[in-house]
């Protein structure tokens, strides 16, 4: 078994118009910049995929990665917890212009909904958002005298995730806080594509330290020296024309 993909273009080739795509990362840490840029390249070459629903904690920064993806107009809807950031002009402008739909989800609920999607739990109750505008229209229930909101699982057609190392079976380890939503998104997508700094042979990763077991991963592509989104933003990089 070898889940290695030959290149980034192949890695994103299966994403179709209207699909839902989970994209890992919290701010710049763990953001799969190269996979996102490969998707932008494809759109610019072919006009597809478009009308995507993207799940990410944020809405991107600057003009690279997720922000650049949104800037192309490929994204019809964003499901996230915190679209306000240091330099969020791309999303903010499109949102105010009514060009992108926003589903705002508390961060812990977002994480738990994705986990539920991967774990076959169609719904769960959480105290988060009870009594707030974000609970509007959702079923509520009382357990042991406390009120909770019912939340539904979240799944996607694709997940694009950045990890540190992966073996050919798809077992993954991450790097520091770059882990964040990655392991959850791997479980919740029909097809999970992971960019790793290094693809290693099975056995090279300590089985005690594997964070994402390979069963959750359909494809692994090596990006040896991945860009760190925060560094790109500080260098005022713009994709597709990286001006630095």
């Amino acid at each position: 078994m070898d889940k290695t993909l030959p290149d980034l273009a192949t890695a994103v080739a299966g994403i179709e118009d209207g699909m839902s795509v989970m994209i890992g990362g919290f701010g710049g840490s763990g953001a799969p910049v190269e996979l996102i840029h490969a998707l932008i390249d494809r759109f610019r070459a072919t006009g597809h995929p478009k009308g995507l629903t993207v799940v990410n904690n944020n809405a991107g920064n600057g003009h690279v990665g997720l922000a650049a993806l949104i800037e192309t107009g490929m994204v019809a809807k964003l499901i996230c917890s915190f679209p306000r950031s240091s330099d969020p002009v791309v999303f903010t402008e499109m949102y105010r212009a009514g060009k992108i739909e926003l589903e705002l989800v508390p961060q812990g609920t977002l994480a738990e909904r994705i986990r539920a999607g991967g774990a076959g739990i169609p719904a769960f109750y959480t105290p988060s958002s009870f009594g707030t505008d974000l609970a509007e229209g959702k079923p509520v229930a009382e357990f042991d005298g406390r009120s909770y909101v019912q939340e539904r699982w979240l799944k996607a057609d694709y997940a694009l995730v950045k990890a540190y190392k992966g073996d050919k079976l798809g077992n993954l380890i991450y790097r520091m806080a770059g882990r964040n939503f990655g392991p959850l998104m791997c479980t919740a997508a029909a097809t999970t594509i992971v960019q790793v700094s290094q693809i290693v042979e099975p056995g090279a990763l300590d089985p005690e330290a594997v964070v994402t077991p390979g069963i959750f991963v359909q494809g692994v592509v090596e990006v040896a020296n991945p860009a760190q989104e925060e560094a790109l933003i500080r260098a005022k990089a713009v994709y597709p024309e990286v001006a630095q």
Partner: protein
Amino acid sequence: MSAHSTTRLTPAQMAWRAAQDIADGAYVNLGIGLPEMVARFQPPGREVIFHTENGILGFGEAPPPGEEDWDLINAGKKAVTLKPGTAFFHHADSFAMVRGGHLDVAILGAFQVSESGDLANWSTGPKGVPAVGGAMDLVHGAKQVAVITDHTTKDGKPKLLEACTLPLTGVACVTRVYTNLAVVDIEGGRFVLREKLPALSMDELQSLTGATLHVMGAVADLNAPEV
């Protein structure tokens, strides 16, 4: 029954037959007991990754006696070994794999299977100590839930029935049954016969089955090598 008793498949042959259907690259959970034998009969050239409920993916075969590490066991509490690419995880992650639809195949034992795919395999009634383990989770989520079972009970009663009489493990979950006489699919609430022992007539097989066996297309011969 004595006439064709010698032609029935052995447990190992049933396991062999089930193993032939597992695709290269599949993630598979094998139930305790007879289903565990399936691991022995992977066709050459196919790589299958085995999952066990107690938190291992990609484990290897049993170690030689005396070399067991009792922290490295499967759900049947039997010692297994590590293979390159093994991963350990806790029980909630393990059942996320199960319930979340990540396993390609789960192969389980059965007391009874109904033509609508109901499975009864955890309780023989109120007398014993009830024990369910992971069976009620495994019947949900795996892309295919198959059963390996003798076609009849030890006293000759059918195990493939119109409706289960024993407590259910899951409703409408089984899609294929490997018995020592036949291979039967469950489609649209009916048993559809796919293979049978060549020496066994349709009438004989039907008489050992507690619900109508439908034929849709060819019925192949069920053959298994001496294993």
